[in-house]
């Protein structure tokens, strides 16, 4: 039996739920594998020894997260960073737009929607100064980005891995899955996502909405765009963007919009708003994305 461990660091636990979303396939998986550790779905406190596959989701936000991650690395043969938070810092990385003091005071002493309370200082682990993806602290054997990785993808990856085979899954951008038609249309105004009614069947970029589909790793079945919502980039950067030192999510989107609309890149840049959330929302904690010379993340992060 292959021993699997699931660990939730700083995250929403949606990644673990996505594993439970395998439904009947979970039974098939449990024929060959045993989940030996997974605090979110079973009553277990300590990490057992001799784990075959450890699946870690969430980012490293405090000292306890870091300790757990290092313990899992020591006790497991194959460690997977599962989900965008573990791979790139994900949505939790947006805390880096504020200082630790701003974040804690907003939660405890200065929260407008609850009674103010004192900052807890006993029994709680120490907060790190910024949010880190798992790869910042330890060697990772496999990265599976996604927010969360969709059940079909998880199925196509986990079943071969348990059988000691290499998984064969696509690695294309969200546009590859999207059914909307991209056209070159001249326009000079970028709309906010809340403005107007986007036409169904037509690419969001061709309509002047900021959609991150072309710079985002897909395999999600383009769920958002088929439901009428532009891509927010939850899958992390597309592999082309990640690979090339001169490519970045920000300049990729600007080039794409300018190419489609014939708008000068400078004009597109002026109209983009709140890039910390709209453009870099899911990768702001990532050291690999931050270290690119063209990246604007260093200007946004408050350390």
């Amino acid at each position, binding site marked *: 039996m292959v021993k699997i461990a699931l660990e939730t660091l700083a995250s929403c636990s949606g990644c673990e739920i996505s594993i439970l979303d395998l439904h009947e396939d979970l039974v098939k998986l449990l024929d060959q594998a045993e989940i030996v550790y997974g605090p979110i779905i079973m009553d277990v406190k300590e990490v057992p020894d001799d784990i075959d596959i450890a699946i870690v989701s969430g980012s490293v936000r405090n000292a306890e997260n870091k300790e757990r991650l290092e313990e899992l690395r020591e006790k497991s043969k194959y460690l997977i960073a599962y989900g965008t938070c573990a791979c790139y810092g994900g949505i939790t990385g947006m805390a880096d737009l504020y200082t630790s003091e701003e974040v804690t005071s907003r939660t405890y002493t200065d929260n407008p929607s609850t009674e103010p309370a004192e900052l807890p200082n006993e029994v709680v682990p120490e907060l790190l100064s910024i949010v880190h993806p798992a790869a910042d602290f330890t060697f*990772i054997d496999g990265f599976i980005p996604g927010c969360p990785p969709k059940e079909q993808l998880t199925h196509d990856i986990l079943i071969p891995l348990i059988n000691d085979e290499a998984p064969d*899954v696509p690695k*294309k951008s969200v546009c*590859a899955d999207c059914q909307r038609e991209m056209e070159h249309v001249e326009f000079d105004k970028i709309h906010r996502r809340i403005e107007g009614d986007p036409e169904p069947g037509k*690419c969001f970029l061709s309509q002047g909405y900021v959609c991150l589909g072309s710079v985002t790793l897909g395999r999600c079945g383009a769920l958002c765009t088929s439901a009428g919502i532009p891509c927010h980039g939850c899958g992390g950067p597309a592999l082309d963007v990640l690979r090339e*030192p001169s490519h970045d999510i920000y300049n990729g989107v600007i080039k794409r919009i300018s190419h489609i609309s014939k708008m000068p890149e400078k004009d597109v840049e002026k109209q983009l708003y709140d890039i910390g959330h709209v453009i870099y929302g899911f990768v702001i904690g990532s050291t690999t994305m931050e270290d690119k010379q063209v990246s604007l993340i260093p200007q946004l992060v408050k350390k």
Partner: protein
Amino acid sequence: MVEILIDEDACVGCGSCVDDCPNDVYKMNEEKWKTEVVNADDCMACLSCHEICPAQAMTHKDIHVAKRLYIDRRVNHVLERMI
């Protein structure tokens, strides 16, 4: 000669590769509204179509990709281990 494969499911029909290719290798298929390789002989494997394609719809077979002068070691680590 370079063999170019088009993933028609992935192609979004934007025609960017048709505009961008310096050697007019691609043409729009008016019926399917997908790109089509019409002139593979002229392809010099510059891969500018890879750069412009939003959906990574094309694959060039058996080409020699020049080793890049600069690739970050950490980026390589992630790329190699991306499942």
